[in-house]
């Protein structure tokens, strides 16, 4: 999996987009533009999806994108639609919506990626930008549109095989470097020391809350699946019993010289219960995994900070 290049312009634009429009758990999205060089993807520009409300029916998103791309082409910007970006709230992004749209992108252009930008982590001092792609396996499943337990089992897919992270290389042009240096000059002291903030509970609480929510969801899914399984086995037993009875009767009839009972469509009599789609469970598992990773990363960082603070205190006293 080769890394792909992103120009810093894209990063700055995404950050700016969130800064201007996103708040709290609101999510901002946009289109990534770029081009495929040899077998590598380069993302050179982007533009945001405009925020619009539900009742704004006149707005046509596709139309807007086309217009936008046409306009960008006029100013000689790469106009290949190579993916999309999305902001995230404490690392929550693994959802059905993401899966669906990423599938359609990847279906059209194989190299398409989704960039996930975590504004909260970024605000704390470490830029968090990750690129994901659906694995070929998942692409297969999505193409089949069969999310039944059997299909997923056959595909041998777990939550860890759903998304693959693609390494990113950010390339800065000289002009950007100048801008960044300029910004650094302007930033206040407090901003710089955000990195060393010791208070962790707020972030952790949020993460835990989200995690708990997902765990609840998971429990529900499992209960659903469990009942399904139970119903299935119950029915299977009934079916077995029925078949046995039938067989007995037939042997009796045979001994009496009567013709056997006519064959009946056994599947019609015992309609198997509707299997719950398992994709949601997978997604939730993926999301839970994601949260856990986040929390782990966060806590390990924080522990480091705490030790550092302790050492400092001991040193000073």
């Amino acid at each position: 999996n080769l890394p792909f290049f992103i120009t810093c312009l894209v990063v700055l634009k995404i950050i700016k987009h969130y800064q201007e429009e996103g708040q709290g758990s609101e999510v901002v999205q946009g289109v990534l533009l770029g081009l495929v060089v040899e077998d590598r993807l380069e993302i050179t520009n982007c533009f945001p999806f405009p925020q619009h409300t539900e009742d704004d029916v006149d707005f046509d998103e596709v139309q807007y994108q086309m217009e936008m791309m046409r306009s960008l082409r006029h100013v000689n910007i790469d106009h290949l639609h190579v993916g999309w970006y999305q902001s995230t709230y404490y690392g929550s992004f693994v959802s059905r919506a993401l899966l669906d749209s990423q599938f359609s992108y990847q279906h059209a252009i194989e190299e398409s990626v989704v960039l996930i930008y975590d504004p909260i982590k970024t605000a704390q001092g470490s830029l968090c930008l990750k690129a994901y792609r659906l694995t070929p396996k998942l692409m297969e499943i999505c193409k089949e549109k069969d999310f039944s337990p059997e299909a997923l089992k056959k595909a041998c897919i777990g939550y860890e095989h759903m998304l693959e992270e693609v390494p990113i290389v950010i390339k800065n042009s000289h002009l950007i470097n100048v801008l960044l240096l300029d910004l650094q000059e302007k930033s206040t002291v407090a901003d710089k020391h955000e990195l060393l903030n010791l208070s962790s509970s707020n972030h952790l609480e949020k993460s835990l809350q989200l995690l708990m929510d997902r765990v609840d969801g998971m429990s529900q899914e499992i209960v659903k699946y469990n009942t399904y399984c139970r119903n299935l086995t119950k029915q299977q037993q009934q079916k077995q019993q029925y078949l046995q009875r039938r067989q007995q009767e037939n042997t009796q009839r045979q001994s009496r010289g009567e013709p056997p009972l006519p064959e009946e469509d056994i599947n019609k009599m015992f309609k198997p219960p509707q299997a719950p789609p398992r994709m949601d469970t997978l997604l939730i598992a993926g999301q839970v995994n994601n949260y856990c990773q986040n929390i782990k990363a966060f806590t390990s960082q924080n522990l480091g900070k705490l030790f550092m603070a302790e050492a400092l205190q001991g040193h000073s006293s």
Partner: protein
Amino acid sequence: SNGTKMRNIEDTKRVVRSAKDKRFEELTNIIKTIRNAMKIRDMSKCLEEFEQLYRAFLKSKTIVDKEGVPQFYIRLLADLEDYLNQLWEDKEGKKKMNKNNAKALSTLRQKIRKYNKDFETEIVSYKENPEQSAEEEEKDDIGSASSSKSDDDEDVTAKSLMKKKPQEEEKKAPEASKFLKGAADEESESEEDEESEDWGSDSVDSGGESEDNEGAAASLAVVFLKKYVYGDKQPERKKDDRRKRHKKMEQVDEEADEEGEGEEGGWEKVKGGVPLVKEKPKMFAKGTEINNAVVIKKLNEILQARGKKGTDRSAQIELFHALAGISNENNLGEGILVKIKFNIIASLYDYNTNLAAFMKAEMWKKCLECIDELLDILFENSNIFIGENIAEDSENLAISDQPFRVRGCILTLVERMDEEFTKIMQNTDPHSQEYVDNLKDEGRVCGIIDRLLQYLESKGSTEEVCRVYLRRIMHTYYKFDYKAHRRSLGLQGETKSEQDQEESEGEDSAIIMDRLCKFIYAKDRTDRIRTCAILCHIYHHALHSRWYQARDLMLMSHLQDNIQHADPPVQILYNRTMVQLGICAFRQGMIKDAHNALLDIQSSGRAKELLGQGLLMRNMQERNAEQEKIEKRRQVPFHMHINLELLECVYLVSAMLLEIPYMAAHEFDARRRMISKQFHHQLRVGERQPLLGPPESMREHVVAASKAMKMGDWRTCHSFIINEKMNSKVWDLFPETQRVREMLVRKIQEESLRTYLFTYSSVYDSISMATLSEMFELELPTVHSIISKMIINEELMASLDQPTQTVVMHRTEPTSLQNMTLQLAEKLGGLVENNERVFDLKQGVYGGYFNRDQRGGYQQKQGYQRGDQKGGYQQRQNYQRGGYRNQNQSSY
């Protein structure tokens, strides 16, 4: 029996009638329809009904054989034949008739001709003298009042009046001449003066012999006057009046005039001749020897009219009274008097045909007097046996060596009286002076019940005693015994007036209740009476703050388990009792018990309805008019009401005292449950207010107090709960106001302290108990005990430092993050559990070594979970305490 007679179901009257009456009523009904059909010339209908009549007559053959052919029957036959002949003659009219009618006419004519041959003699005699026989019957109508010596007369019942009415129309024309004839007859045989006075004595049988005629005519004066006195306004009576006026005129003027102005003149004259009025109650002929048999006969006669349409009920009551007077004058003995009294009371109850209607004041007074008198008689004469199981014919009313035996049940009468009283109270505006006046009768009602109780204790059966005891209990249980209360406070000396002294000498109501109830518990065999008695007993205990007795009785009776099977009035009583129990617990400072007792009633939001203290407004789909009527009848009279505001306030304050500390203790607990939904609802309502002014209503006060308590500010809380407004609204309603208020203040202080510690313990490293005791104005030992209790219950993570008298906080209350982690752990446990189940299924449920192993594991898991849910909290906290202390120590 009297008893059954009084039990009217809804508005219909059940009257016990003899077979004869029944048969004859049937006949008269049919005759009525025939006459109606005649009027509209509906021949087919006539025919049909005639055939029915024929059949009905055959059915009543036995009676007819005994009594003779009833006059009204003959009359109909005669009239019908005449009528048919007349129609037959009328060729014009016949042509106009439709086919069916014409056919029916001819058939009917033939039939009746054939049929009438059997009654030829009677018809002839009737035709000779139709007016007389009509007249005679008419008198009997009036004569629900009249009496007669002759048996034959009885067959002409009041019913015949109705039947006669249409006929009257037809007869108007020939009337005058008939009167003439009657008068003539009378003159010819005027020797029998004595007889003529007795207007009720027309011993005419179907033949209608002329000698009786004059009796009828002569007695008219009396009849008429009687009517006049009673002021009957029914139009049909008026008609009678008029007819009588004719006769009167004839008699007085001795002129054979036709009706006209003369008639009016005659009327005036009579009116002038008022002296006759004095003879009003005269029921018997002058010379008649008044003895038992005569009086009983008369009594029965009056009774016959009972329940029939057109019977003047008030007149009937008057008659009974008159009869009682007569029997008294003639010293016929108490037996008959008792019998008559029974009937008077019964007819007083009968006065209102509608069960929903209540007695008028004067009726009610009369009723009370009557029962009182009856009881007087019964007390004075111990040789009177009364009972509902004494058959009518085994009665002994005459004075003899044998004791009197009278049929009737005084207990039923008194019970009915009590019900009537309740009804009166229900139907009086509770905020009027009238209500107070009516309520004054309660004393009399109680007095009567008391006397009856004495009477039955010596004479009645156990069941009767139980019943009357219950009545007594029902009048006692809801009253607060002030004298006992005063006595218990040692204020006996303060009552100065003699009356007070006298009052306070009586038995304590508690003792009475105890005695009566225990008797019922031991002797009663109907479940209902016992249930009611228990509930009343509990109520009474609770009312007088004997909490433990009340509670124990409630628990021992197991009423809570099966009360839902009881009938609504008992359920209402149960609800009242529970509420009273709750309020009692509150007064005793048992906040939790109070809350639990009141929870059911208050959480439904229909306390008013459940206590039978008013109907809630609801749409008509849920309750139709009929149901509403029934529910209205179940309402408890106002003077027995439990103050709903007091009830709600007690409930809310209890909830506040429980809920606020609980909320503070479980601030971060996701699984926190509400103790009282109602209270939370009130809090939310309070929060929703856009602008919070000073509290006005009781609820607002409680909400404001709750808010203050949340902050541990007991002074503000106190000032919201106990102030002038709340005093007048709620607290002053308690008999021991001061004590309750003191209890309440103390509770507020204690719970505020707890809340304060829960809420702010994280702020403190340590806090001195002296400071706390100062803050909450509690004694040091109390503070000590409260804090100790909290520590023992692991509500507060702290330890007491004895030498310095301080509470040292351990700071181990889980932070919100830790709480969250705990929750997460729990959830993950559930998740794993569920996952394992899936796995179990995959493994298959059928036996095998592996599976057994699995099950063991599963059980273990369950054990783990159980521990997690209950004892687990403790465990977890232990774990935490250890764990975090370590962390604290290491990192700080």
